[in-house]
């Protein structure tokens, strides 16, 4: 039991804590605020307090719980909205109303609720950590697998299907150290990555239904990506799109130091939206962590770890999981604030010197892995996507630079595109995906064999357009040859009719891979036919005024059940119109 000697914002220094360990969770003051030890000097501990510290003063008690900051994992996580240290916000609301009071203690998952446990292992089976004992139907779209917790290995003595809450043992395992009752929940310290057998290179795409991403800059399951952009360029909308439409089993969405209304938006909207694959509400596969910008800054630092630990737990079941963090810059700012209060020597722009390594540690917890289990056959993936909010949109700042050194996909949002209402405002010239080669095999095999060839062709057209654009700016459009004019027009079609996607449109918000491919193929076909017509000396205007172009422009909004017929019809019409042009002399 220690006593406070100093209070400075979220940082509290207490003495008399010689027995405590680094990173132990402590309870501070009469209100028993939650904090974590982040520095020890003799018997003096620096504590970052996860709640508002007004009213704390010297002499108040500080008590160590003897355990590091941990999350509780088990059935009941899904559909819940948590704060940065895994306190369910709905439960807090029930306790203290519309605002967040202090010192609230509520269990992260409902301890009383009964779940229907179905045993899949049998008595006598030899099991070790990570092996699946049975399943629980947590939501209509998610089957929760109950795993043997870490540190437990032996033979199942007894196991019974039935109705249990998360604290009742569902099985007893006979281990070298005696019998261990296994319940449906486990605890895991957030700052330690959950172990796995080994990592494997990611080579399956995480399909997002976003044309700009899937076709142009795809991300792999188990990959890492960053979305940097100045305010108003659409970071949050892009992240919401990923959370909605990615083809993963579980999405963990971390609102880290961002707007409260954005979390409310997710809370209101996700239960209404249907997963295009399962047809069930998206909320049934989502876990939300909300530490909004007005909530205490220290808990913001923890929220990222809370989120990724929950994600790792689902990965260990063999699921594909996506962690979406908005925004890692706010997390870095929380680090900076604590570092400043600790009076550490600052690195760049006041950020602590360990910023880049902390960042790398976070992203490195992503990956496609063989999970821990006896047969070693189970594969899970954890994809991490982080938004970056560079001050003034300037990517030379430390957080952006530290991020760019780690992530493999970079979706650069561009404010000038956003001003033109080109959404998603992903700049096709600055963005990149290092998974392109690795994923082309899968895409060519599963979508269409011309997939990557078409992608390269489209990309070339866009790059040529950028070059030609410079010439146009100097000497005008008239100076271009008809062939170059056509390239400009086709590139415009790619931009407007393909890359632009309406996140709020009923049809356009999600575009299947097949549809993406066909739409692109149609635009490239136009380019090919038009090029051939020009070769034969046809007038540029005739080629540009082909009637089918207007239909291509509207092809995005054709309902999902009709697009195949419609696209085929557009193609027919286009070919006929070009044939007409060629016949006319």
């Amino acid at each position, binding site marked *: 039991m220690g006593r406070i*000697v*100093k*209070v*400075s*914002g979220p940082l509290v220094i207490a003495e008399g804590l010689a027995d405590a360990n680094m990173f132990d969770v402590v309870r501070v003051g009469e209100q028993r605020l939650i904090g974590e030890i982040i520095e020890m000097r003799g018997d003096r501990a620096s504590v970052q307090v996860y709640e*508002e*510290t*007004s*009213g*704390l*003063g*010297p*002499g108040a008690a500080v008590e160590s719980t003897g355990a590091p900051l941990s999350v509780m994992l088990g059935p009941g996580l899904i559909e819940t*909205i948590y704060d940065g240290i895994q306190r369910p*916000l*709905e439960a*807090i*609301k029930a306790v203290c*109303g*519309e*605002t*967040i*009071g202090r010192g609230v203690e509520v269990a992260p998952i409902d301890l009383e609720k009964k779940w229907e446990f179905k045993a899949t292992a049998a008595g006598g089976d030899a099991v070790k950590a990570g092996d699946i004992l049975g399943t629980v139907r947590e939501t209509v779209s998610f089957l929760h697998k109950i795993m043997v917790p870490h540190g437990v290995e032996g033979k199942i003595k007894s196991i019974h299907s039935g109705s249990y809450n998360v604290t009742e043992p569902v099985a007893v395992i006979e281990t070298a150290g005696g019998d261990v009752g296994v319940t449906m929940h486990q605890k895991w310290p957030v700052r330690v990555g959950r172990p796995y057998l080994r990592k494997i290179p990611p080579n399956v795409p995480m399909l997002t239904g976003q044309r700009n991403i899937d076709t142009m800059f795809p991300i792999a399951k188990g990959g890492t990506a960053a979305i940097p952009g*100045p*305010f*108003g360029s659409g970071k*949050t909308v892009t992240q919401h799109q990923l959370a909605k439409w990615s083809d993963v089993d579980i999405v963990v969405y971390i*609102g880290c*130091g961002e*707007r*409260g*209304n954005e*979390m*409310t*938006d997710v*809370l*209101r909207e996700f239960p209404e939206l249907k997963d295009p694959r399962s047809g069930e509400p998206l909320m049934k596969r989502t876990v939300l962590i*909300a530490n*909004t*910008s*007005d909530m205490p800054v220290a808990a913001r630092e923890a929220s990222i770890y809370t989120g990724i630990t929950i994600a790792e737990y689902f990965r260990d079941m063999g699921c594909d999981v996506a962690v979406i963090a908005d925004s890692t810059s*706010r997390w870095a700012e929380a680090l*900076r*604030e604590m570092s*400043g209060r600790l009076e550490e020597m*600052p690195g760049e*722009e*006041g950020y602590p010197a360990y910023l880049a390594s902390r960042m790398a540690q976070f992203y490195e917890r992503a990956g496609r892995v063989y999970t821990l289990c006896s047969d070693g056959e189970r594969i899970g993936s954890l994809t991490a996507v982080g938004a970056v909010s560079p001050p*003034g*949109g300037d990517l030379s700042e430390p957080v952006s630079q530290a991020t760019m050194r780690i992530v493999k996909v970079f979706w650069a949002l561009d404010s000038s595109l*956003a*001003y*033109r*209402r080109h959404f998603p405002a992903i700049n096709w010239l600055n963005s990149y995906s290092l998974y392109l080669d690795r994923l082309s095999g899968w895409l060519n095999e599963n979508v269409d064999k011309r997939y990557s060839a078409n992608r390269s062709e489209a990309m070339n057209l866009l790059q040529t357009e950028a070059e030609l654009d410079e010439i146009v700016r100097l*000497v*005008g*459009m*008239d100076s271009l040859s008809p062939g170059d004019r056509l390239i400009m027009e086709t590139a415009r079609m790619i931009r407007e009719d393909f890359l632009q996607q309406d996140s709020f449109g009923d049809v356009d918000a999600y575009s299947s891979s097949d549809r993406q491919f066909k739409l692109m193929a149609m635009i490239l076909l136009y380019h090919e036919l038009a090029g051939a017509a020009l070769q034969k000396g046809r007038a540029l205007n005739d080629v540009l005024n082909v009637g089918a172009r207007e239909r291509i422009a*509207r092809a995005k*909004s054709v309902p999902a059940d009709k697009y195949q017929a419609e696209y085929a019809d557009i193609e027919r019409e286009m070919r006929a119109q070009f044939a007409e042009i060629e016949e006319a002399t």
Partner: protein
Amino acid sequence: MIKEYKTIQEVAGPLMLVRRVEGVTFNEIGEIQLQNGSVRRCRVLEINGSDALVQLFESSAGINLAESKVRFLGRSLELPVSGDMLGRVFDGLGHPADGGPDILAEKKMDINGLPMNPAARDYPNEFIQTGVSSVDGLNTLVRGQKLPIFSGSGLPHADLAAQIARQSRVLGGESNFAVVFAAIGITFEEAEFFTSDFRRTGAIDRTVMFINLASDPAIERIATPRMALTAAEYLAFEKDMHVLVILTDITNYAEALREVSAARKEVPGRRGYPGYLYTDLATMYERAGRRIGKEGSITMIPILSMPEDDKTHPIPDLTGYITEGQIILSRELYRKNLQPPVDVLPSLSRLKDKGIGKGKTREDHANTMNQLFAAYARGKEAKELMTILGEAALTEVDKLYAKFADAFERRYVNQGYNENRTIEDTLNLGWELLTILPKGELKRIKPEFIEKYWPKG
């Protein structure tokens, strides 16, 4: 028994160190009694053993290290609130400044407020008609939104804010409306402009004003916006009123914050502003919103003047990352004498999509809005090209776009500060302008809307 300390060790700038205190807690408020009997207020910033570092809210003039006495009150700064606040004027620390009596407090509220539980927020989606086309049509404001005006020195942000305060209403129904106005370090004339405008329109009876003028202590400005927001929270969530909060000018607030931070010798972030500026601003801005089960709402329009009109300056930059969009005023448009000089392309309302459309404004709103944006952007590009290469360098279509851009600025954006346009007027005007372009160019509008709304004849 409250102890009095005569142990002031040092006073430097806005900070004061008091030695040998007991039982003092973080963020607690204190009173300093001067020899002449006057009382100043301060707040505990850091407590280290028996040393308390406090921040003054007023000037340090007259404080005597040996004679002045300090008492700590065991609570944080509070504002007495009641329904009688409407129509009153207070100073930056919440004392009546209109010569009227003190408020008979119904209760006292901590000015720092508490973070709102995201699970208890109600999503803002009720359209507010401000009567300003560039806002209603393109950057729609909704109830419970925080939408700042990014301005520059000498630009008419006050006129626009007053126009919005005067004309705002919600379609289909009268409601319980109030304005909370906080002047943060602005000049007397600017404050007077608002007061007289509110008086002229009779809105003054439904207005609470907190005035910290440029001549008042800068450090007081740290409390002023929080006073205003506390009053707003009381009116909105306990008196069921729809409150519009106008805070002007946030730049002065951030400078006061920088002053305290510099005095504490904290490691600065960008441009000398403290690293926690984002968090600090967020704890104010995030107090806007709606709550589930509550009738009232807080809509916030903070005004800030961008130093050198630079949007990447830390104050507008961090504000933009917190607020739900921004209305940007442009010096270029102001020089062209457009009123209000709203630069619509970089302006944005993040919540507009939920506040417009069928049943709220009109079914074609989203489509026409996107089309106007896209067409204006292309028109501006064409005009740029034209200034370099001459009109001949443009294609026929681009010439039409350039013509559209001019007409759009002249008629849509430029409406004056006294014209109150209904949303119907705004949408129809948009259609009228779009007729400058060939029908085939309207790719962002559904064909059935073109059919229905394309102006006849």
